[in-house]
């Protein structure tokens, strides 16, 4: 997966953790942006 199978044990482990870290940061940035855009609408809906 993602071509990391060819790496040695330690490098593969580090790559896996790196992928999880990058995914987490990308998701955080993406969802934060989404939250900022949708927050006013969501608040308006919740208050009615």
């Amino acid at each position, binding site marked *: *997966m*993602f071509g990391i199978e060819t790496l040695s*044990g*330690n490098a*593969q*482990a*580090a790559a*896996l*953790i790196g*992928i*999880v*870290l990058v*995914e*987490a*940061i990308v*998701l*955080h940035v993406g*969802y*934060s942006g989404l*939250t900022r855009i949708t927050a006013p609408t969501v*608040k308006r809906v*919740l*208050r009615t």
Partner: protein
Amino acid sequence: MEILGVGLTMIALFVGFGLLIGILFGFFGMGGSFLVTPALLVMGYPSRVAVGSGLAFVFGTSVIATIKHRNLGQVDYKLGVSMIIGTTLGIEVGKEIVLHLEELGMAGGIISVTYVLLLGGIGAFVTYEALKGNGGDDGGIDHDVGEDADVDADDIPDIAKRIQSYRVPPMLTLRGGVQVSLWTVLAVAFVTGLLSGFLGVGGGFIRMPALFYLIGVPVPVAVGTDLFEIVFSGGIGSFLYAQSGGVDLSIVAPLLAGSALGAQIGSAATSIVDEEGIKIYFGLMLLGGAVAVAFRQIGESFGIPVLNTVSFVLIIGAALLVSGAVVYSSVAAVRREEAGRTGAGAD
């Protein structure tokens, strides 16, 4: 249709489960490994993959939740770094005890019984405290704890006040103005690390109540600092498991996709919801987790597969109940605020 070798139904299940866990993690700063790993075990994944992938998921989620809590000023780095030192030592000693017990052939049984007793004990204590309404004006603790905000003495549990009275230098000044001896912090971190290493879990469900009840750290700072520490313990733990192929990205990626959204909701809820109203659900979730682990252990020991299913339903049910309570309370708080504003406007 398959993505990363996993069917769409499984991906949807993982994303949904991740969403629930993310809300809990974002709000309470715990609830990752003790919910995810048993669920993966019940789904038939090998122990190595269940524990390794659970840890990798906890690592990713704690990164996101820590960033959120940092932005809210709820991470005490001084406390976090001190805790990491004590916890690391504790984990090492805990692992040594496990290896010794393994040589004696007693590890499995003792660990399971300790896990159930500890999880159940903390759950019962938190539930009792919540029912008693302990701490603060009608029991609530201010969620808006900034760097310069002082904590009301009534909000600090009695046992924490007694521990804070032992003024052995050097003293640490924590967020909220709490002063505590570095040695106390290291001792609490060592004991929680010992239990964490002994039980093989992230330890948030031990450390978070310990930070609040034993050191007197305000709940939001306890949550944020606990998450900061889990970034390190989860990262190192998942790296060690990944070395032996214990981390499966087809499990971690969808779980993380759901939990990242949930963590946004959970972290935001800490600034809206009165924690005291939710604390009872936190306690009940821990009790549910203890019962689920006990059922799984009994099912495995006596060969009763139906108890595994009951355990799985309990885990999902507990996660659904408590994350639902967090979301419901947040919506109710927003509506109350709006009603108050409208009322004030009318006056």
